[in-house]
């Protein structure tokens, strides 16, 4: 049974691909409305962990509960309460932003009112009629975020949502997420290479490397690990000898 205080509960989860152990017995708990960042270099196991929470991958060992439910038995309900934005998803090039949003809205049986609401939320009203392949990288990422927010998810999973974006576009995404934090009770799991993104947005930071959690807590708690560091990167170097963004 899961602890109902938490929206996400991961218990001793392990996952391997052929000879590579991507996640090695990870546990974590996330409260409703809490924003959590998963930080780590490439190959740390963040994406595999998030994919298991999304239900795309199945753990070899361990259990995952989302709002007390497991993917195996409650797939339909869990799809309704999760929103996600994957790294580098490309929508259909020749659909407009509005048509893309209507398409995804139809999967949740939502009508055009909700689509218009989301366009206002992501600040993309003026691009509704633009084809996806005519949107900039930042606009596409906002569209992906909008699609993730359509169903008013209880839990939002964002995989590297601002990778490759310029500082302005990144700031726009952050503002949308901060608004979400202030006005809705959505929980967020964010994977990122960017320390400042985690610092700016999240209540709690989890640092992963080679399939393990190296440390977790608020920014201050994390920096205090190992005798006080000025930045997460400095801390990561002291823990692993490598940069966080490698």
């Amino acid at each position, binding site marked *: 049974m899961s602890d109902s205080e938490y929206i996400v509960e991961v218990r001793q989860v392990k996952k391997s691909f052929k000879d590579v152990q991507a996640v090695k017995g990870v546990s974590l708990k996330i409260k409703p409305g809490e924003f959590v960042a998963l930080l780590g270099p490439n190959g740390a196991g963040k994406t595999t962990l998030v994919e298991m929470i999304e*239900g795309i991958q199945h753990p070899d060992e361990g259990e995952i509960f989302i709002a007390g439910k497991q993917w195996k038995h409650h797939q339909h309900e869990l799809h309704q309460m999760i929103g996600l934005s994957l790294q580098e998803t*490309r929508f*259909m090039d020749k*659909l407009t932003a509005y048509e893309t949003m209507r398409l995804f809205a139809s999967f949740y049986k939502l009508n055009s009112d909700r689509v218009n609401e989301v366009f206002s939320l992501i600040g993309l009203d003026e691009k509704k009629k633009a084809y996806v392949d005519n949107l900039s990288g930042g606009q596409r990422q906002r569209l992906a975020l909008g699609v993730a927010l359509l169903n008013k998810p209880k839990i939002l999973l964002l995989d590297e949502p601002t990778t490759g974006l310029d500082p302005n576009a990144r700031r726009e995404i952050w503002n949308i997420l901060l608004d979400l934090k202030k006005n809705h009770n959505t929980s967020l799991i964010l994977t990122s290479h960017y320390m400042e993104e985690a610092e700016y947005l999240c209540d709690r930071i989890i640092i992963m490397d080679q399939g393990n959690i190296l440390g977790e807590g608020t920014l201050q708690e994390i920096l205090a690990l190992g005798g006080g560091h000025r930045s997460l990167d400095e801390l990561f170097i002291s823990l692993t000898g490598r940069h966080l963004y490698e």
Partner: protein
Amino acid sequence: MNKITNHQLYRLIVAHFAEIIREPSVIFWGVVFPILMAWGLGIAFTQKGGVQAKLAVVINLEGVSGNQQTKLISWLTANAQKKDSVYTITLKNEKLGNATLSFFETSSSNAFTLLKKGKVSVIIEDQLNGSSYRFDPANAEAKAAYHLAADLEAHGPLFYTENQSQIQPLTLSGTRYVDFLIPGLLAMGIMMACSWGISYTIIDRRSKKLLRRMVATPMKKSNLLFALITARFTMNLAEAILLFLFAWLYFGVKIQGSFSALIVLFISANIAFSGIAILISSRTANTEVGNGMINAIVTPMMVVSGVFFSYHNFPDWAIPAIQYLPLTMITDTFRSIFNEGAGFLDVWREALVLTITGIVSFVIGLKIFKWY
């Protein structure tokens, strides 16, 4: 609010259809190109365009003395027009179309160069007492050039122009090359549209992680595939209608058999190739690999299934296998409806086999389908 416009199946069909019709190259390759091909091939093989035979003449002076000439050159000098070193003679025949023979007088080594470059198809060694002919007997064009030149040399131009009354050209609908071609093009259009329009689209969307994003919602997976097939079927129908309208108005191609049989076969052909397309695209996320797999399936069928020319030219042992290929089955059955007046009772077996092929391929494809 109209509820159907919020339904996921409606939205998926609209999205896929919009993607197809908003891509100008799809319209070109799907609609314009088959019509151009029908027009080009139909014209090329329907008009009495006549024959162009090009031959190299190498003079062998052995035994020739004084003002004597070898036999063929002697005849050409008297009867053909000469410009530079080329003798040209046109043999006229209204029924057969005119035959123009060009004889390039040249050296032995240059004659072989011309042959290798495809500028001539036959080399004639012209001697005092007659000619010998060198050519590839497997080359139909060379064989025809040989017969024309040899008959000309033996009998003079009359062999080609006389007895025109005994030739009765077939111009009846259903017996011309264009009547053979159009059903083949319709069948090929279905195969190409399904293979590229369904398989490639799925592989491309998998590689762009769009499939993965979609199945992370409450979308029904079957709706996605059904919508993709429906949008493609609608487009195939439009393409087929336009091609047929062109063939009917321009060449007078007619459907002599049952229209309902044609509809049934068209649907079963689409089911067959849609199922095969799902199977082809069931695993890979690499568009290069997908490209190769699609080509590996469609190219052999395009070559052997008799779309452009009869597959009965292949060895006898290969023909039973060729006849059971889906494209051959569709092409043959379309032809029987168009040209032989076939009805539903004549084509139901083929329609059933094609439908079962499609369903079995679809079910296997779905079983092994990778959504991400």
